[in-house]
């Protein structure tokens, strides 16, 4: 459990910081909701003046924007972006920690199997994500009761909230694969931001052209908020793809971690 404890300790402060940041981002958006709702006529006019493609790209559904769930679906994209960057950062930094610090020889010459080390790192990363999301989702659910939720289904709200969690686990896996497979990693935050913004843009692109091929490379759109609000459930095939995006990069990076020669420092 040495690696697990070590990684968990290293993630403690970033986890606390990110929990506060995510809750703060959500809270800031929530502050806008009452104003947004009370001035719905003006905002409807304003939003309708935007080109349709722009509204689609920014996930602005004028018909539902003034309900809590519609507003949440809109701004959850930005919360999703922040949480995705965080999760990807965790994945990259945990699995590239030895590459960055050049401590692969130190760690891998210890009497633990590489598989065991990998699983301990994974467990520490998942523990951090679970810890963050217990607080974060708890905060989201609390805000449902604080804000005016007239006409907003609690089930839909919960599904939208859990979508943020699923995205984080996907991005963590992608980060883990990058951290393990990339020959050199210098700045995990740079990689995580690049991946996060890149996938955010593919999500916006899908919002405009609604092409399923584009959707495959837009994980932010796998669990479409439109579908969730229309059916009060996830779109099962796309949920399956989410699971695949969580499992496959981890499986590939695990095999790589176990079998790869450690480069000499």
């Amino acid at each position, binding site marked *: 459990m040495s690696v697990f404890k070590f990684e968990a300790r290293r993630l403690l402060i970033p986890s606390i910081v990110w929990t506060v940041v995510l809750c703060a981002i959500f809270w800031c958006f929530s502050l806008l909701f009452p104003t947004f709702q009370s001035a719905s006529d003006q905002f409807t006019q304003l939003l309708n003046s935007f080109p349709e493609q722009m509204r689609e790209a920014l996930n602005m559904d004028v018909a539902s924007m003034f309900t809590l769930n519609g507003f949440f679906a809109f701004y959850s994209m930005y919360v999703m972006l922040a949480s995705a960057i965080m999760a990807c950062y965790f994945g990259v930094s945990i699995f590239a920690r030895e590459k960055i610090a050049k*401590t692969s*020889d130190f760690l891998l010459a*210890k009497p*633990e199997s590489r598989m065991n080390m990998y699983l301990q790192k994974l467990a520490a990363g998942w523990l951090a994500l679970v810890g963050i999301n217990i607080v974060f989702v708890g905060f989201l659910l609390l805000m449902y009761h604080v804000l005016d939720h007239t006409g907003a289904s609690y089930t839909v709200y919960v599904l939208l909230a859990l979508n943020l969690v699923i995205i984080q686990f996907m991005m963590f896996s992608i980060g883990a694969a990058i951290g393990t497979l990339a020959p050199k990693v210098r700045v995990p935050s740079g990689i995580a931001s690049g991946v996060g913004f890149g996938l955010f843009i593919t999500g916006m692109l899908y919002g405009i052209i609604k092409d399923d091929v584009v959707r495959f490379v837009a994980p932010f759109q796998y669990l479409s908020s439109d579908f969730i609000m229309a059916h009060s459930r996830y779109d099962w095939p796309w949920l399956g793809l989410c699971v695949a995006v969580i499992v496959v990069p981890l499986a590939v990076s695990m095999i790589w971690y176990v079998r790869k*020669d450690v480069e000499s*420092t």
Partner: protein
Amino acid sequence: MAVIETKDLTKYYGKTRGIENLNLAVEEGEIFGFIGPNGAGKSTTIRTLLNLIFPTSGSAMIFGLDVVKDKVKILKDVGYLPSEVFYYDGMRAIDLLTYSASFYRVDAKPRIKELADRLDLDLHKKIDDLSYGNRKKVGIIQGLLHSPKLIILDEPTGGLDPLMQQTFFQIIREQNQAGATVLFSSHILSEVQKMASRIAIIKDGNIIKTETMAEMQKESYKKVILTFKTPEEAKAFTLAGSDGVEVHDNTFNCIYRGDIHLLVTAIAASAAIDVHIAEPDLEEVFMHYYRSDGPNATDNVSAAPASHKKVAA
């Protein structure tokens, strides 16, 4: 019993040779020197033994166990000091050492303190703030804190001042006297000379010679310095079995390997006015091997190297 045993151990990095058909046996309780210049394959051998890299072919056993299949069992009893030491940012030396000790499930605190005192290391300083030499001390402690049965040292003394090197060698000797086997890789031959009871010379990924230190130094290798009246006489002098001949003014220098009687006869027949014959240090013997090319160099190093002067004395 061989603590380390490799059979035709080969490692290629793509098409680049690391080591090739390397056969090595390190016996229990010995200090085994592993010498060769950079790129000869020392670190590749060590990293294969530690399962940091996987062999392309052949096998390696430590304590009679396979280094790939039984890595975890083996590494419980192995201490490793790499040539370059790197650690995680923001950790104090004691944190790093405690983390290292946690893998061995032993209470290493007394041992850490004892070694830190001997090496004069402040355990509560951040590793980032330590000099290279002090980081090396952290490396030494983390390699020895669990009192390993096998200690693998890869170019261990870089960054240590001469006094600290002495302390380090003393610690290693004590570990050896307590029963630990030591594999000591270096290209600094005087270090190996001080420590090792037996050495292997590695060249181009192959071991070209394995001998005890005593054999290596006494196997009729002599450092010969002859002084002549004139530079011309010095230049004109030739000696069968000599290598590394250097003539400076009226002085003739070489490493001689062969029948000592022939050497004395050749000197007696020469016009030398002064003679100095001494044991060569390992560096000079080592260079003798390294200057040797061709099939004799690897197949049978006891044969006369190709560069020897073949002139009758």
